[in-house]
């Protein structure tokens, strides 16, 4: 595996296994993360994401398989502390210590000089609108503000590679947006990001690639457009009508593969890819009292749900992107 520049990926994981007693937490996962990417590691609870992340950070060792980082022309099994940023799922802070001191401490542990750590702490507190509360003990801050400090403690040293396990959990929508922008900015300043999250709408806005795990195995990977193409079995039109929506109005039209009433006043029409829409739109206009109409793409949420359900139905084996039955998309 190598990037377009010919260099190996920043992170290469090959056939990694981890078992706890009789539980197979990670079973033969391989992945790579290239320099400058934001990659999402997705999967349901218990899929093995955190176990895999802990191996990437070096907190535990794989039973089998390898983890390799390529950085500054060298291949290593672990990243040096200054190069790694880590926001763990299992997290907390020193409640009796101020935000400024906490951040400066983590900056020092990550290799910043004392002055640089203090400066970085101030910058991040300013960025998160916490400068005026810098010297208050963390226990005096709200959960959201503590989460900001926690996030800053993981990345204030501008690491080459940041692993963020559930960065959005517990945040309100405004702060979720703030974190999305901040992660994008981090990438802009040279930080490669691997993140795990359950907020698909946020992940969709942020990431370059997705790796989906289920029951310890990879079940899907690719960019979001690639995943859409793989999953998409047609075009979906959402038609809003005045009054009661009746699917019978469109059943039998040659361009319509399936039609469902998805709300009292809403029909969802599925057509095959590439089917000309002119006739169909005319038919819709003549047979329904249309108030609005739009085409809809599969969301990452849809792809996630379908892939995980399909993989669970398939004993957790990698999913090939083919639907069990054509049209069974709802």
């Amino acid at each position, binding site marked *: 595996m190598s990037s377009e520049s010919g260099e190996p990926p920043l992170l290469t994981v090959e056939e990694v296994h981890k078992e706890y007693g009789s539980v197979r937490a990670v079973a033969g996962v391989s992945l790579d993360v290239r320099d400058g990417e934001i990659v999402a590691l997705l999967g349901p609870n218990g899929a093995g994401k955190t176990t895999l992340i802990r191996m990437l950070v070096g907190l535990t060792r794989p039973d089998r398989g390898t983890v390799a980082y390529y950085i500054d022309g060298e291949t290593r099994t672990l990243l040096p502390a200054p190069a790694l940023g880590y926001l763990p799922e299992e997290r907390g802070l020193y409640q009796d210590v101020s935000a400024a001191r906490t951040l400066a*401490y983590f900056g020092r542990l990550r290799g910043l000089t004392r002055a640089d750590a203090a400066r970085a702490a101030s910058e991040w507190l300013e960025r998160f609108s916490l400068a005026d509360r810098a010297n208050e003990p963390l226990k005096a801050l709200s959960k959201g503000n503590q989460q900001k400090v926690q996030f800053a403690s993981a990345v204030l040293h501008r690491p080459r590679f940041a692993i963020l396990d559930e960065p959005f959990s517990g945040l309100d929508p405004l702060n979720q947006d703030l974190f999305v922008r901040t992660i994008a900015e981090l990438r802009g300043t040279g930080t490669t990001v691997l993140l795990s999250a359950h907020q698909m709408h946020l992940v969709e806005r942020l990431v370059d690639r997705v790796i989906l795990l289920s029951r310890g195995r990879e079940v899907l990977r690719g960019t979001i457009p690639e995943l859409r193409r793989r999953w998409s079995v047609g075009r979906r039109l959402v038609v809003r009508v005045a009054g009661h929506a009746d699917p019978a109005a469109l059943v039998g039209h040659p361009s319509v593969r399936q039609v469902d009433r998805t709300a009292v006043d809403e029909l969802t029409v599925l057509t095959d890819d590439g089917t000309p829409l002119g006739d169909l739109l005319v038919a819709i206009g003549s047979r329904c009292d249309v108030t609005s109409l739009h085409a809809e793409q599969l969301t990452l949420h849809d792809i996630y749900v379908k892939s995980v359900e399909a993989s669970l139905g398939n004993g957790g084996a990698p999913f090939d992107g083919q639907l069990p039955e054509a049209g069974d998309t709802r």
Partner: protein
Amino acid sequence: MSMWQMTWEVARWEFRRFLKPKQLVISMVTMLVTGSITLGIARVIGRGRTNIAIVALVGGDRVGLGADTLGKRVALQPRSLGSEAALRDSAQRGDLDGLLIVHDAARAELVVRRDPPWRLDLENALNGVAVKHRLAEAGLEAGALQRLAAPMALQLTRAPGAGPGRGERIVTGAVLTLSLLGLMTGMGFIFAGITGEKQQRVTEQVISAIPPQQWIDGKIIGLAGVALVNTLVTAVTFGGLFAAFTIATGRSFALAVDQPFLIPLLVLFPLLGFALWFAFLSAIAATIDDPHTSTKGSLMMLSFLPVVVAGLLFTRADTAAARFFGVLPLTSSSVLPLRLLMAEVAPWEVPLALVLLAGTIWVLRRAAGKIFAVGMLMYGKEPTVREIWRWAREG
């Protein structure tokens, strides 16, 4: 950042986090006030008039006992033999504090409402009376009796530097007390510092930044520093108070250590003991999931072992057992200082104890690092002793 810099950074962090000068001063003042109040209460109680029990005496003339005050607590009032029955009723009702009926020099009866607190005083006094009576019966005159009862005055003449005197005993007591204080204080800080960190779920982020060995080393150094400062402040406060009290009351005050070269050893060994036991305590604390319910907290009491053993050997510092525990690494931090002050120490004992203690600290520190690395990331369950042992061996 080098390993040492990492260790130092953690030590600095822990020291600054747990050393709270204002609280320390408040704590000292509170202790002084509490101590003064307790002392004052003790003095008031001591000076208070003791109630003297009035005990009717029947048959005292059989052993030459008459109206008398025995010690400060019992006054005897002789009565006639004929009044015994009435007096017995009075004593049992509690109208009288007691009725003492003396049958002969070997036998007496005390009639009371309930077992009195002055019973032992009465028994001791009666024994003395009985002995005198028997000696008199044996025909000894009063002068001879006095000579028999006179104590021998023992004057102590010590060769300079030849053994422990009062000064050495005070210094030994001070060293052991400070060791115990340091261990107790350190135990508190380490327990709070490590279990608190686990409960606050900080560990994973820290341990991704620095190796566990540097983390535990830093914690031990930082928290030991806090314990030492607390111990020294306590020692200076109460030592000063003791000195002032001693001088003010005109008592002698001599903290004698005949050989000044002992002083560095008296400091070094307890400090090494702190290092050893704090490493042990850190490892145990890392395996505790919930300090409120964990049974492993009792293991931490093991850290008092050296002081307890030294205390037991305080008056036997020159025995073979003391020599053994003086070089045994688990106890030498307190027992060797005891022996240095209170007994003759062979030239090989100090270097042997030092090497063994330093070696044990190194081994325990590494084992503690391995236990710490696993224990700090374990939430929700506590490892068994067998598991801890496996971690220590395998890492």
